[in-house]
């Protein structure tokens, strides 16, 4: 009985070798997974490609980003490469200034406390949004923590420059405006 089991083991073992050869043989004749990159570009999946961090535009106003200048990306970036400065409040208009002057004069005449000077409400948007790509590690933390999903990745594959200065301060607000301008001209042409 033992001998028969042994023989059976040997036979199944040898057959498994043949099956293995068949598997690799089939793989030999199947088409390749590799895309011969610069000669062919179809079949490549750009979905997951991560270039430098980039701002996402508001759907209604493509020149403005969704960003609310909460500074979460600035604090969470492990390399500290994002710099965001909140937009300043706009200067008060002429009428507001006139009304304030009048109210001030009136208050001084009556001996009451002077009213506070008009201060515009600071909009929740960034005045400056710059990323230092030479330090970015494309970890994705900034995009992950952004509460309004305002950060995405550039899909530009062929990035080249001549010096570090080409990459150490990428102005994303300017890029966004450029993109909006291009989109507008594209729409006009279409």
């Amino acid at each position: 009985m033992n001998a028969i089991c042994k023989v059976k083991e040997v036979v199944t073992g040898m057959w498994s070798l043949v099956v293995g050869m068949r598997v690799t043989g089939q793989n030999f004749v199947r088409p390749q997974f590799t895309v011969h990159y610069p000669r062919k570009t179809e079949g490549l999946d750009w979905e997951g490609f991560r270039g430098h961090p980039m701002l996402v535009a508001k759907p209604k106003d493509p020149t403005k980003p969704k960003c609310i200048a909460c500074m979460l990306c600035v604090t969470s970036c492990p390399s500290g490469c994002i710099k965001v400065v909140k937009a300043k409040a706009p200067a008060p208009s002429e009428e507001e200034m006139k009304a304030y002057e009048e109210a001030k004069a009136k208050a001084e005449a009556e001996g009451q406390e002077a009213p506070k000077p008009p201060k515009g409400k600071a909009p929740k948007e960034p005045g400056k949004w710059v990323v230092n790509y030479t330090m970015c590690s494309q970890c994705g933390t900034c995009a992950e923590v952004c509460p309004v999903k305002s950060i995405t990745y550039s899909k530009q594959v062929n990035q080249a420059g001549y010096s570090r200065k080409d990459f150490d301060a990428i102005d994303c607000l300017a890029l966004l405006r450029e993109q909006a301008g291009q989109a507008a001209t594209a729409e006009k042409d279409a």
Partner: protein
Amino acid sequence: MSEVLKSLPVELIQLVVGLICLAALVGASAVLLVWMERKVAGHFQRRPGPFEVGPHGLLQTVADAAKLIGKQLATPRGADKILYWAAPFIAFLPVFVVMLPIPWGETLMALDVDLGLLLILAFSGMGVISLCLAGWGSNNKYGMLGAARAVSQSVAYEIPLLLSVLPIVFMTGSLSLSLVASVQGTWPWDWLVVRQPLAFFIYFVCAVAETNRAPFDLPEGESELTAGFHTEYSGMGFGLFFLAEYANMVVVSAVATTLFLGAWHGPGSDLLGGAVGVLWFMAKVVFLIFVMMWFRWTFPRVRFDQLLNIAWKWLIPLALINLLITAVLIPLWR
């Protein structure tokens, strides 16, 4: 001058010309085989392999050779200089001798000698000493261990190799490769493989083990992990070992083709003055090498004890039984 040339025996001239042609063949086959190995490896893994250097990567081997030649020939401290540098040459030089008696075509062989098979088997044994010297001369304990394993592997598999070749010798009654080739016919059913399939199988497995190819590539595979007999070699020393390995693959496949697969026989082999026969021979050799590469990318490496068990417990008994059956049946038939 012409007196000197006239007094030279014809056999000597034939030998020298043959050696020169074989040297060219070894070089050309190394270039082709390295490219083929990388392309075949790529295709088995569903990727293209080398593609940029030359059309479809054909010049890749040239680039690799140029890189190897340009490297520094460093000798490790404490290494035995003579043995260390002798080892790659001892690995490489027998290849030329071994290729002499192979019948590449009906009339195309460098040395038509009655003991061709014996010549091949004897000089294949010199590869073993080169492994030994490489490990010993390196002054490296990993190299020493790797060499010890490589030597025991080579020695263990030489026995079933000889035992699987003997039935063919019994059947044809001669050790001459050209005679064995001429005994076979044009079609596959006339080849000796149908009469000795087990011998062919054992021979092929031993051939893969003798040339240190996967799944028996412990001597080389170890070098990826720790070492192996050629750990201390870089540049051209390493290049010579691998040139020897590829040339050995060609030799072993050529012997298998001659003994079992009908050498230069094939439909239309007498056309073009025997040139088609040479093409058939080359095609069969390339096919066998392709099968060796197929084995490499299919099977995992065998462990050292499994390797020796296969040789001692399976291949030697099977080869002996095969030999016994052949030896008993032939006189009975006659």
